[in-house]
């Protein structure tokens, strides 16, 4: 599940909802697809425990019943936490998202980690290049702190990164900026922050 891309996660969710037998609303057009919006694409290799999605149904189903049905149909690796009914004119999730909290486990130890963190937080611009485009990483980092090491002694970080269109911070890039290897990490999204907390959420845990 961790290596399921955004589009593939979308399809996995569609199939789960079809198995659940919910009266899904479909988009019109040549290829009909269920109307589902995931709040924010999860980078490949990142796990999460509080993703948000909007799902449109043709007929009302009690949230509790919908939750039960989706839970029993969910594939391994996706757990449903909560289903809430939202008004149809509620703002779209994708526009309402502001930032995300990630916990990062370093599989290779970084010496002087606290100093490195302090260095980043105190830094001015942190110019980088992503897909041939220059950008400044520093404003994308809203918060960065150290957590207790995990039970096997791996160092851990908690970072809050901006998650907006054209302004999304990536945990692996922060680790690289710290001097660590972006490949020797485990990244886990623990929370999505919305600009104004809307009522609509249906939460799943990939």
């Amino acid at each position, binding site marked *: 599940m*961790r*290596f399921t*891309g955004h589009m*593939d996660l979308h399809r996995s969710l569609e*199939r789960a909802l079809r*198995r659940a037998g919910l009266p899904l609303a479909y988009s019109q057009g040549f290829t009909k697809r269920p109307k589902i919006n995931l709040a924010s694409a999860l980078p490949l290799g990142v796990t999460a425990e509080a993703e948000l999605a909007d799902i449109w149904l043709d007929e009302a189903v009690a949230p509790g019943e919908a939750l039960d049905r989706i839970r029993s*149909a969910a594939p391994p690796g996706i757990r449903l936490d909560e289903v809430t009914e939202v008004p149809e004119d509620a703002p779209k999730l994708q526009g309402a998202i502001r930032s995300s909290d990630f916990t990062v486990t370093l599989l290779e130890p970084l010496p002087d980690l606290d100093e490195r963190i302090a260095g980043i937080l105190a830094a001015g611009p942190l110019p980088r290049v992503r897909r041939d485009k220059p950008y400044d990483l520093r404003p994308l980092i809203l918060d960065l702190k150290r957590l207790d090491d995990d039970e096997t002694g791996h160092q851990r970080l908690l970072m809050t990164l901006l998650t907006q269109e054209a302004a999304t911070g990536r945990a692996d890039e922060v680790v690289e900026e710290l001097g660590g290897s972006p490949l020797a990490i485990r990244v886990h999204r623990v929370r999505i922050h919305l600009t104004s907390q809307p009522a609509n959420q249906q939460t799943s845990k990939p």
Partner: protein
Amino acid sequence: MTPSEIESRLERILPRVQKPGRYTGGELNQVVKDWDGVETTVAMAFPDIYDLGMSNLGMMILYDLVNKRADALAERVYSPWLDMEAELREAGIPLYSLETKHAIRDFDILAVSLPYETLYTNTLNLLDLAGIPLFSDERSPDDPLVIAGGHAAFNPEPMAPFIDAFVIGEGEEVMIEIVEVHQAWKKSGEPREGLWHRLAHLWGVYVPALYEAHYHADGTFDRIEKRAEHAQLPIVKRIVSQLPPPVTNFIVPYIDVSHNRIPIEIMRGCTRGCRFCHAGMITRPVRERTVEEVCEAIEKALEATGFEEVGLLSLSSSDYTHVVELVKAVGERFADRVLSISLPSLRIESLSVDLMDALKDQRRSGFTLAPEAATERMREIINKPVSSEQLLETAREIYSRGYTHIKLYFMMGHPSETMEDIDAIIDLCKAVLKVGREQIGGRAKLTAGVSTFVPKPHTPFQWVPCDDLDTIYEKQEHLKRHMRGKGLKLNWNNPKETMLEAALSRGDRRLAEVVYRAWQKGCKFDAWYEGFRYDLWLEAYEEAGLAPDFYTHRPRPLDEVFPWEHLSTTLKKKFLTEDYLWSLAGRTRIDCRNQCFACGILPVFSQLRKDTPGEHWQCPEIKSRRVTVVDGDGTYMPQAVKEHRALLQIE
């Protein structure tokens, strides 16, 4: 290496490879059993990447069957793509199963799917990545039993030294028998050869090490010699008398794969007798499932998977007896769902208006038709008689209903083909597109897929020389030059890949050395642009002292003994010879549902036919009395199979 060691090393390399989801398993409906709670562990391998292997129905059938047994488990493995292979080797991770990450070498049985020849080097690579000795006579009792089956196994000789046992024919029953034989052998404490001897008793199982091949001085095949008293000769293919209930709890991949849908086999075998068609010859007789059984299976599979598309599969869907009824029943039963139903392999002349209307589903934008040849003369030679007028009429029907795209499949290189036949392909495609223009104007599109004919063993064209490279290039250039214009598209195959396939399909046991050397030089993924290296193959031929032309272009005399004849499809050589001669005379055969041509199937399987009467089996009913015998070792085998063995005995 233990599963947890493999898993922890994997964590480091997966983020570095393309599509890591190919290597993780964990999908919905995968079967995970207690490793220590079963007697027999089977690794099922498809020697190409996950994206292709996941749509292999044969493997899913056997996976399901083995996992249904309480005392056995089956797990999957596919070939890692080039980047992942490099990472695995670098990190010292042996090839492992997706379900529990056990090393493949720790399984009791490794069962390899071999549907086509360009997977041979990948099979060697798979064994090597697993740390299993490549040659069957170098394996110890601790190594897995390596078995293989699939359409290519009907001439397995180029792979003979690498595989302990081949399954010739259908695997549904014999897979379980192999598991049982393995269990008995494990308890016996016999050496590895003991397992070979036990397997050699099973109907449809070929243990190549128990046979020796002899050749004439000119390199042609002389005969196969048994090296054990009880080894079968010939080895008669395995079939099931009735198709078992279809698999419905398909694994649902997280990542996108080819044919990402529910596959339901509606019918096995084909009665048309196209002379080039390997599948049509080796999968006889025709056995159909009922409409009700198919509908039930779709229902169950939808509930189990949530897929949005169903493929109703067979070699010739419009020949399914109740095809109109089936399409209507499916349409009605699933009317309230958003669902695509595809019915591939429709015949041109029977693609009825009714069927098209019933099929009209949301995703379809066109139809694929396979005339295979562009002139009526050539279609008579290959025994796919349909008039060009009929084709144009069907095309008109399709375009007029608003479908914009028609794909036409052709083969070039049929026997007696000239450049005029190639011109005819161009003319026919343009004529079809013109029909489309008349109906829907500039939106009409036509794609011509022109592949090169590869003569296949066990078919009436097994004697035919394949076109040589220069001729293929010349014909392709001609097509590319003239098949141009708005709305027209041409696809073709790499001629060198055709040459490789042509040599391996009608190869003998000596080619194993070429396969081995080619693999040593780095050949793998021969069906992929990224992997195929014909220059290395040519070096391998050279070093082995063999010439590819001997296998591809040499005209074979009618009385030549072929290196695959000891593997019997039950089609009589006399029947194939006659059909070949008829083809040279431009004589066709009608659909054999209307008239039995005594190909040889029925006498051999008369008892099975008698045991399962009814219209589901398209061969005529059997009235006469036959006796079924049970061998001393308990193997069920129709009397006629024994007689047939005597009949085909090569002295």
